[in-house]
């Protein structure tokens, strides 16, 4: 008898749980890798969506794993199996274009950009990263900056150095600091943070125009200019800690904060870590500057959402995209996520001091895309760049690394 009672109870509970979904006319499945610290920002957006469209049930399909390593694999099996989610998160730029757009799996959103007036609201450098000749492919939600150098202002005053403006200055400062007993002036972490450092060095050595030419295939990796970037990278690496590959990016930031190192190059999610998790005041507890030789250039990465062909709830997905691109949607999401809005007209009062300064640069700087975070290089290149790095680290041979990078670029048809 007790068992039967339990059945009745569970049947009632199931009916109650099922009721709203039975009432809802339509559904929307949102596929992302935002969980943990980033979960609340996404939830705030979904709450807003449910308030705007109460008869659409929004389903949050999250596959956890840093920067989407697992989510992308799940997405591929779903798309290949003919079961696309209604809208999915993807790094804006080539991660979307070279994987899904060229395969003819995405809908062109340039109509949406025109009807919502977004072509004037987002900076042109961003729109060109999102677009190909045949259309614009995703709605950017947030912007992070890759080329930032972090330090502790009080410590630098103590050591009597100032944040270096160029990589040459950096190397000189590095020697000065080594003389003062700082064994490894640059804090570095596990493998991908080394790639992250490389893109800041390469952008600094090449400059924004040659950096972009590299990814459009106009500049070869074997060009002496690019080889020089590897050589400079080698010198910068000599200033870093030898146990790098055992540290997460947060632990590398901690080294810098504790004074074991003077500088750290990391994307501006590090500001979120220091300001929100560690409760440090931007500008006092930690200082920031564009990584050396890159002032006036904003190397961006962006999370965006697209519309796959064959989405089961296309209308609901379009409403979702409209919310993401709106000023209100971006200002709900970004202060919680610790990033700036992709739009130029966001309400800066909602953001902290670091984000305000980043937003100022976003409006005035030249915009280029990040390699490590999927903006300028196809996945097939990005996932093999680690191999190039291993080849370089094994022999410290810039030419060998350069020719391996060119071999991969040819294999994945970079820029074609």
């Amino acid at each position: 008898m007790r068992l039967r009672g339990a059945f009745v109870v569970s049947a009632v509970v199931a009916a109650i749980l099922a009721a709203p979904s039975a009432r809802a006319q339509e559904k929307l499945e949102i596929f992302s890798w935002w969980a943990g610290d980033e979960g609340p920002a996404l939830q705030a957006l979904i709450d807003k969506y449910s308030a705007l469209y109460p008869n659409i049930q929004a389903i949050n399909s999250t596959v956890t794993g840093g920067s989407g390593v697992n989510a992308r694999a799940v997405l591929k099996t779903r798309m290949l199996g003919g079961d696309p989610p209604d809208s999915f998160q993807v790094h804006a730029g080539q991660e979307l274009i070279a994987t899904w757009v060229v395969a003819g799996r995405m809908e062109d959103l340039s109509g949406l950009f025109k009807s919502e007036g977004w072509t004037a609201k987002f900076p042109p450098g961003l729109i060109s990263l999102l677009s190909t000749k045949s259309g614009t492919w995703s709605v950017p939600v947030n912007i992070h900056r890759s080329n930032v150098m972090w330090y502790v202002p009080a410590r630098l005053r103590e050591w009597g150095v100032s944040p270096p403006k160029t990589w040459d200055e950096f190397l000189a400062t590095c020697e000065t600091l080594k003389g003062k007993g700082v064994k490894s002036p640059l804090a570095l972490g596990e493998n991908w943070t080394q790639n992250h450092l490389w893109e800041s060095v390469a952008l600094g050595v090449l400059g924004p125009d040659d950096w972009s030419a590299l990814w459009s295939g106009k500049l070869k990796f074997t060009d002496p200019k690019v080889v020089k970037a590897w050589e400079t990278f080698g010198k910068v690496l000599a200033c870093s800690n030898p146990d790098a590959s055992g540290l997460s990016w947060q632990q590398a930031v901690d080294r810098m904060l504790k004074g074991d190192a003077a500088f750290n190059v990391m994307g501006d999610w590090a500001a979120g870590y220091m300001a929100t998790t560690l409760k440090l005041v931007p500008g006092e507890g930690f200082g920031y500057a564009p990584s050396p030789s890159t002032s006036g250039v904003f190397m961006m990465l962006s999370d965006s959402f697209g519309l796959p062909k064959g989405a089961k709830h296309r209308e609901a997905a379009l409403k979702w995209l409209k919310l993401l691109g709106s000023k209100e949607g971006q200002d709900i999401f970004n202060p919680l996520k610790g990033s700036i809005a992709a739009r130029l007209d966001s309400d800066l009062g909602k953001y902290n001091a670091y984000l305000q300064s980043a937003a100022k640069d976003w409006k005035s700087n030249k915009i280029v895309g990040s390699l490590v975070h999927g903006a300028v290089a196809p996945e097939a290149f990005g996932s093999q760049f680690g191999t190039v790095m291993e080849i370089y680290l094994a022999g410290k041979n810039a030419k060998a690394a350069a020719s391996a990078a060119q071999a991969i670029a040819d294999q994945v048809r970079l820029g074609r």
Partner: protein
Amino acid sequence: MRWRRHTNQIIGFLVLLPSMALVGVFVYSFIGRTLYASLTDWGQDPAQALALNPITRFIGLDNYRQLFTGVIDARFRQDLVSTVFFTAFFLAGCLLVGLLLAILIDHKPRGEGFFRGVFLFPFALSFVVTGTIWRWLLQPGGGVNQLPTMVGLPAGSFAWLTSKQQVWRFDWNALPAMLAWAAALSLAALALSALRSRRRGRAAAAAAGAVLAAGWALLAGPAAAPLPFPELHGFNLAFVGIVVAAVWQMAGYTMALYLAGLSGVPEEIREAAVVEGASEWQLYTRVILPLLAPITLSAMIVLGHISLKIFDLVFAMAGPDNAYTDVPALLMYITTFRGNQFAKGAAIGVILLLLVAVIVVPYLRSQLKEGVHE
């Protein structure tokens, strides 16, 4: 009576049919499809990689040629070398530790059942759990490295999983000659043993093969360089930690196998050996171990195919991006699902399947033959 036997056969066939159909579709047809995919260029053209109906071209063995001799697939070759080293150390570790534990418990110490459970317990964990625990223990600044400080010694400084040291390095270009020498040596051994058992014909054939292989290694070996430049591979010391964790997990299982074997050794044989004046050491090395040979073989088969396919333990311990602890199964995953190189990923999968088949198929055949004799 004949019709009855007939219906029995039909019923037997009908009962087997569903599982035959399922295995046929979900195992063999998928193997066939993977094999076919590995012979195409699926993934080379980004426009076709993830298209709804990808158009692929048949390119024969080109993916395999690239894996073994292409400039950018050096990582695959290092992974293959790493797997061979890992398998060797993992097998040796499990067999030694497992046998030792089995002999200890076979002496029926107090609390025998308790220790049996304790030693077997790690086997019940999933590799992901084992990997996570050992990753913590093997942090360069903590866990195992701090152990010596408890007895007043300086802390260890080995970097474990993040080590970049490589030992026993060799040039990939020397591999064809090395393989030929190995073939020559094993054929020579075969010839000797055939000679001892007076099978002249077989001995002559094996000896001729040995001379042929050695001759090839001497004359053509140095010229058969697959790469235009030297490429060094070796044993990555970062694997030491992974071997330790894997042995920790699987030694209990080996112990259980050996315990079953030990209990099958008749008491009379042990007594007879003792009466003949055999020492404890002789009893084990001359009497019991030879009797356990079939157990050792099946343990090697089971452990060997686990180590060749290992994925989850390494993924949990060192992550997929640490090149120094990479294995082919991980590279297959990264190549396929991150790099979108589906054909090349399939080729790595087929190579793994062949490696496992080399171990498992002869074993299965010998087992089936035995079954027929009984």
